[in-house]
């Protein structure tokens, strides 16, 4: 079995210090003579006030230099295609290659969003069908595909709540948005952006919503509750029907944070649980790549009462003309949340994913993701230094959260150290220090697209790390050793005196440093 793994260490310079004056990596087609003659010197005609006199200080490289630079960088990057990527809440499953291939097709990638509807019937049909499929998976009445990411979907959802209360003339009263203390940080952040006051409800001993506590914070001021289910501990909120009643009873709306949808596909649906607004993380649940941080896509489904508030346009089908079109005729719409219609290249990949999985495949994915999380849970609970807080004895859904608190107390090795040491074993770490209700949290989501052998390797590595922590804690505390770089000084990166957030900022600092020494 593989143990230690070495990542490439290219010590690749920043692109600005590569190349040489006068080099170019790309050439433009010559302008035809007739055009050149007619146009003359176009920049000469520009007013001095707006004419560029100093060219931007971009690097000057040949094509091969650019390619080698970025290929070397890519070799210092770990992706799902490199191995396990068990970030809890992030659902880093395998991304089928056929989806990328199809998304790159001319018939998709070379479409302009303002094209005449008759020329884009294929892509509109795809979007329309996909939105119907997402309606089916989420148990809602209509889905908007526009949000660019999960958080963008949350913002839309919170704005829809606002629009709903405004429409009912009760916006002045419903000003508070409730989020559990275990919620994703985006929930309160999105709520604030939409103008709500955030009220935090503490979790119960089980890590689920504490009904008593919920009842004390719910009032006539409640605009809604944002809740993921299963929650961030991977525990299913069994009281969801009662929670929905409590929120609806106060005139509020229930919002489903879709980060954990993978666990329940085909088993149950947010809409059936009483949720009014649901966002879906396409780049998590529907197997589209995350691109090192994006693009993602965060469609939002809503119940009937809220459909009229969705952003414009919605993709619709005109039965009479037998044609798909973009429907802007929605007078109660909240308007726009971005340009055009959504991250279509991502949505097309999701369409391909659902086609290849089928309804039963999605359900099976949910089952195996839960099985894998519980397998890891069983295996890890016997490893020294880790404990499973909350809801002991209850199975988890797609993820489980361990605490390295015992290890920290006994050896001084923290969850972050464990995470860093995993990198030396050629494995990506779990999410750390989240949810906030778990000290020294290690949040593990294996997903369904992992073989048992790789899972065993992950468990085995954690076992070894535990042994290392108890025998030679400094070994773990100083990890990683085999990644492209050793542990980084993140404080320096953010300190006003040392931060270098761009090449020019870095250069200016060097000048100041040189002058003062």
């Amino acid at each position, binding site marked *: 079995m593989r143990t230690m793994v070495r990542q490439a260490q290219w*010590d690749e310079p*920043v692109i*600005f210090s590569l190349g040489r004056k006068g080099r*170019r*990596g*790309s050439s*433009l087609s010559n302008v035809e003579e007739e*055009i050149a003659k*007619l146009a003359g010197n176009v*920049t000469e005609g*520009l007013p001095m006030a707006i004419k*560029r006199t100093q*060219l*931007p200080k971009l690097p000057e490289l040949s*094509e091969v230099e650019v390619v080698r630079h970025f290929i070397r*960088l*890519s070799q210092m990057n770990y992706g*799902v*295609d490199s191995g396990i990527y068990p*970030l809890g809440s992030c659902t880093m499953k395998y991304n*089928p290659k056929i989806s990328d291939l*199809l998304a790159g*097709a001319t018939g998709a990638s070379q*479409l302009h*969003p*303002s094209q005449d509807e*008759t020329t*884009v019937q294929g892509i509109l*049909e795809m979007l329309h069908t996909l939105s119907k499929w997402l309606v089916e998976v989420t148990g809602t009445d209509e889905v908007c595909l526009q949000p*660019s*990411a*999960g958080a963008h979907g949350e913002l839309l959802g919170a704005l829809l709540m606002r629009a709903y209360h405004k429409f009912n003339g009760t916006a002045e009263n419903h000003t508070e948005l409730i989020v559990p203390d275990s919620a994703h*940080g*985006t929930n309160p952040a999105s709520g604030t952006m939409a103008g709500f006051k955030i009220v935090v409800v503490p979790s119960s001993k089980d890590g689920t919503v504490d009904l008593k506590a919920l009842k004390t914070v719910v009032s006539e001021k409640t605009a809604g509750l944002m809740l993921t289910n299963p929650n961030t501990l991977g525990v299913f909120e069994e009281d969801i029907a009662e929670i929905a009643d409590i929120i609806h009873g106060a005139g509020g709306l229930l919002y489903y944070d879709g980060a954990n949808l993978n666990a329940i596909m085909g088993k149950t649906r947010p809409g*059936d649980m009483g949720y009014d607004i649901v966002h879906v993380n396409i780049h998590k649940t529907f197997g589209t790549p*995350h*691109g*090192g941080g*994006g*693009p993602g896509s*965060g469609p939002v489904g809503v119940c009937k009462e809220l459909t009229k508030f969705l952003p414009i346009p919605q993709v619709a089908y005109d039965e009479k003309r037998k044609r798909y079109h973009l429907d802007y005729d929605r007078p109660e719409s909240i*308007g*726009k*949340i*971005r*340009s*055009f219609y959504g991250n279509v*290249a991502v949505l097309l990949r999701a369409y391909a994913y659902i086609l290849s999985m089928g309804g039963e495949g999605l*359900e099976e994915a949910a089952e195996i993701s839960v099985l894998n999380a519980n397998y890891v849970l069983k295996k890890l609970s016997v490893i020294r230094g880790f404990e499973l807080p909350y809801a002991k004895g209850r199975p988890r859904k797609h993820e489980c959260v361990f605490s390295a608190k015992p290890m920290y107390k006994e050896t001084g090795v923290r969850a972050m150290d464990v*995470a860093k040491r995993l*990198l030396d074993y050629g494995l990506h770490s779990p999410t*750390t220090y989240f949810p906030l209700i778990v000290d020294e949290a290690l949040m593990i989501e294996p997903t369904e697209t992992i073989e048992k052998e790789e899972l065993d390797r992950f468990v085995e590595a954690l076992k070894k790390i535990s042994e290392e922590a108890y025998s030679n804690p400094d070994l773990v505390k100083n990890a990683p050793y085999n*990644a*492209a770089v*050793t542990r*980084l000084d993140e404080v320096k*990166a953010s300190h006003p005196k*040392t931060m*270098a957030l761009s090449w*020019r900022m870095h250069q200016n600092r060097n000048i100041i440093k040189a002058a003062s020494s």
Partner: protein
Amino acid sequence: MLKRKLNLPKAMSEQEVKQHIEALLSKNRSTRDMPTFLGAGCWPHYIPAAVDNIVQRSEFITSYTPYQPEISQGMLQSLFEYQSMICELADMDVANSSMYDWASALGEAARMAVRINNRNEIVVPKLIHPERHATLETYIEPLKMRVKKADYNHETGLINLEKLKELVSDKTAAVYIENPSYLGFIESQVKEIAEIAHDKGALFIAGVDPTSLGVLKAPGEYGADIVIGEGQPLGNHMNYGGPLLGLFACKGETEVIRQMPGRIIGMTTTLKGDKTGFCMALQTREQHIRRERATSNICTNEALCAVASAAYLGLLGPEGLKELGETIMMRAKYAMHKLSLIQGVEAPVFNSPHFKEFTVNFDKTGKTVRSIHQALLKKHGIHGGKEVSKEFPELGQTALYCVTEVHSKGDVDKLALGLSDVLRRKR
């Protein structure tokens, strides 16, 4: 518990998926199948093969947000380089590693201005991109902020400075301009606008098309405090309008930078101090730490599109970017000339220098833009520009055309011939 199976199609083999989707996509006619003159927020440009090749590296495309920097140096350094290049284009100190698009970047920029000066109005040009305006309204509505529109000079399209002065007051959080403007002309009164904003203590936000920044002055040089824009034309395909790439950069003190939304990658060293490395910086602004007090809720952004832009700018270099701007302006100028020769057609409507887009007015032809474009598409297989008559009724029967380096003389000549033919016909 769902007591039935999901009502979704049965699983297909990879081959079936491919056939199905290819058949579906074959119902589209792409910009490669017909000369197309659309821009208005999403633009066709030539993308060097190396760019596509680089962003298809699976180590980039299948990675998550770089939460473990030690094994994510490739993405982090690429994003740092992207940020640094945007700073050079815009003459700013800090750029974030991307927003969703220009429109949402505008919404976030307005909110940032409010955090800095606690005022509640933003002044925008009357000829602002309507989708950007709509997105701005959505983003600032919860703040009870108001948008005021500054009128324009009907000859030149440029902002009417007298009117602008009347609108800007000590309630103004920011003055926003687009350059080139939505309708393609270049706003040249930038110094004056900056002064009007700064005199009242308002911030100056400039929205840009970065492909213009090899020929147009960097906004930082003319006094912009925040620069936003659309990065899609820097090496990203149009993809029916998404993903796009929101540019966001600013100048100033640490306290201003701390108000920025979005992820920022910083350069640092290892703890041992022996090597340079990269990691996320100023994370205390962000939702996963600051929660309801975060500067924004954005986390997933358009990172891979940013990498494409870094590779694209790396290939072009300063001279390439300048040449790109000049080429575009020449081709657009030729197109305006050709179209203006057609009887009854006015191109452009405003007598200012234009970049890659320009207005074409058909009032004197007695026909509507819609009917002209339908005929052009059906009879000649040419896709005209975007109709803007409904967005700005005062402009009459007007369309916004876009010409870039991808449009050959042949394409433009075909367009001119097609339009002449369509306009000659009775119906």
